[in-house]
């Protein structure tokens, strides 16, 4: 994570247009998002938005306060630093007969999976903590990354607690 980075989890009404309300507030107040994911939750009436961003204590306080003011936002929390964070990446990389073995070895060490394979490129799926993903990308650069996409992180706190506790 970036310096001063933190992760916010937000429960919002699972309704049309709510994501726009949240992201529009970020734009309006000048907050920069590093990554954002959204999806269904254990409660069908809510969606969970996970936002990673960076900022000082002032920005953090303002952001939480402004989020809490939105009518469709039901719960906001800054997650503990030790929370479980996961991200998924798909990455297409070039290979030659000389480089293939190295790429497959790296894939193996990172417990990644090759999910598509043609005569000169392969597509690899990696899951894990964002720092692991970063490291894997660094490793692949010399081979020639063709295209990649990352989901942004999803995160939960450890233990049996929920945001609603």
């Amino acid at each position: 994570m970036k310096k001063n980075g933190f992760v916010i989890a937000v429960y919002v009404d699972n309704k049309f247009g709510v994501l726009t309300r949240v992201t529009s507030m970020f734009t309006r107040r000048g907050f920069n998002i590093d990554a954002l994911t959204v999806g269904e939750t254990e409660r069908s009436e809510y969606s969970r938005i996970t936002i990673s961003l960076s900022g000082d204590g002032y920005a953090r306080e303002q952001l939480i306060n402004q989020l809490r003011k939105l009518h469709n936002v039901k719960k906001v929390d800054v997650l503990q630093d030790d929370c479980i964070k996961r991200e998924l990446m798909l990455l297409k990389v070039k290979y030659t007969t000389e480089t293939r073995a190295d790429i497959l070895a790296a894939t193996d060490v990172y417990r990644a999976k090759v999910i598509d394979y043609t005569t000169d490129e392969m597509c690899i799926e990696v899951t894990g903590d964002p720092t692991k993903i970063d490291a894997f990308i660094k490793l692949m650069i010399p081979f020639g990354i063709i295209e990649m996409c990352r989901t942004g992180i999803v995160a939960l706190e450890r233990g049996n607690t929920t945001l609603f506790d």
Partner: protein
Amino acid sequence: MKITGAEIIIRTLIEQGVTDVFGYPGGQVINIYDAIYKHSDKINHILTAHEQGAAHAADGYSRATGKVGVCIATSGPGATNLVTGIATAMLDSIPLVAITGNVPCSLIGKDSFQEIDITGITLPITKHNYFVNKIEDLADSIREAFSIAKSGRPGPVLVDVPKDVQTALYDYEEGEIAPKIPLPLGEDEKIAEAIALVNEAKRPYIYIGGGAAGLGLGDEIVELANKIDACIGCSFMGLSAIPDGCDRFLGMQGMHGHYASSMAQNEADLIIGIGVRFSDRATGNVSKFAKRSKIIQLDPDFSEINKNVKVDCCIVGDVSHSFREIAKACEKKSNKEWIERVEELKADEAKFEKEIADSSTAQLSPKKVFDVINASKPRNTVIVTDVGQHQMWTAQYVKFDSTRRFVSSGGLGTMGFGLGAAIGARVATGDTTVLITGDGSFGMNLNELATAVSHNIPVVIVLMNNGVLGMVRQWQTLFFGGRYSNTVLGARQTDFVKLAEAFGALGYRAHNEAEFKDAFEKAIASGKTVVIDTIIDKDEFVLPMLPPGGAIDDIITKVEK
């Protein structure tokens, strides 16, 4: 029994206690207007000249009473014309419900005639908004809109209803008036902290904002000031909260505030902020604001705490409750030195003011205009303004006799706000309503003269006519070497007396104090809408002035002409 969506809208408004709405018909609200026609015995619709006027009227209606103002507009341009009015209400936390029609759901997203995504457009300028695409959600969306508009920190809510939802049939059961959700009470611990700070303070300054103005705490604030030997100042939005005639009240502080009020705030060792948000116009350079002072902030909105100014003690929640707890428990004391210092500042201010008055060679100085208004306005007159120099002179000079008698666009600074808002305030209160405006602002929405005349809503309009955009000109004089780029209106040749007459209103012109006094008194007595074209000099300044982004030491009290 099933009724149409349009009928549900109007019945829900009636159920919510609405008696007056401001609006303008159009293709996608024609069904709503049909329902208004049917229920015209219960709901009074005021047709404005432009939707912007309707939004400002609903806003003025709310500011003068605290009730939720309601406006209605059609889709597309009707809806976009509301935007400035909604933003004005948002920035000053005014409860408003705006209802717009939209094209039928089947045409949404097709760039249909007069289709616009008004919920998208108003997202950042409403507390919340609704696009109601199901008839079963209609009544409850409107009820929620009222509840959100008036609860917590108030604000505008927009409800957009496609035409097919207006014509669909659905069951309607009359509901209760939507509740104003009570604010949480301030934490006892924080209140105790605040009391300790008040007890320690030797130079306390009570600072009132818009969040306190509507609460009717004026007399209690004066009592507290007496008890702890404090002085009182206010932000622009806090004007009219303290009844006139209180010695401890120094008036507005900030960019064009009273000298003594701004200086005392700067020298205080404790600022007790009640419903204030420390806007940039109030603080100037925030890093140099009130450096010697601890700050207590009482506010209903947690997001205002530490937003603009770092405070030492914040109490979020019901402001009246927190205030009363502090006032009850703090110790009575005397701060002789502080009060002497405040008196000194007041004397300095009187000296500046006299110099300014003496230096004026004009036939009719702004100060004289306000002397007449103060002397001749009936009790409980609602004073409405537009935006510019006249607005700041109003803030400095007018003596308000009770709260909610000052209606002005503070946060957004909307020129063209005044006439619509004055119409709304007059409809809401039935009390004498005086609009103080300038030739620039008045020119923006003077079409609403037609509304005032056609609905017999008398508004006395004091048009301070200097032939220039005075406030911008003042900045051009002070900071732009006198390069008067596009601020001279002299070539317009508008005859405001004839203009008033053309609209069916009365028009007078005043060049000096005697003429103005005569015109103002006649206007008040006439019970009609009157425009008083009040000729003032183009080089009158609003003083003192803290330059934008400046600190208290940069205060300008004198300009060599």
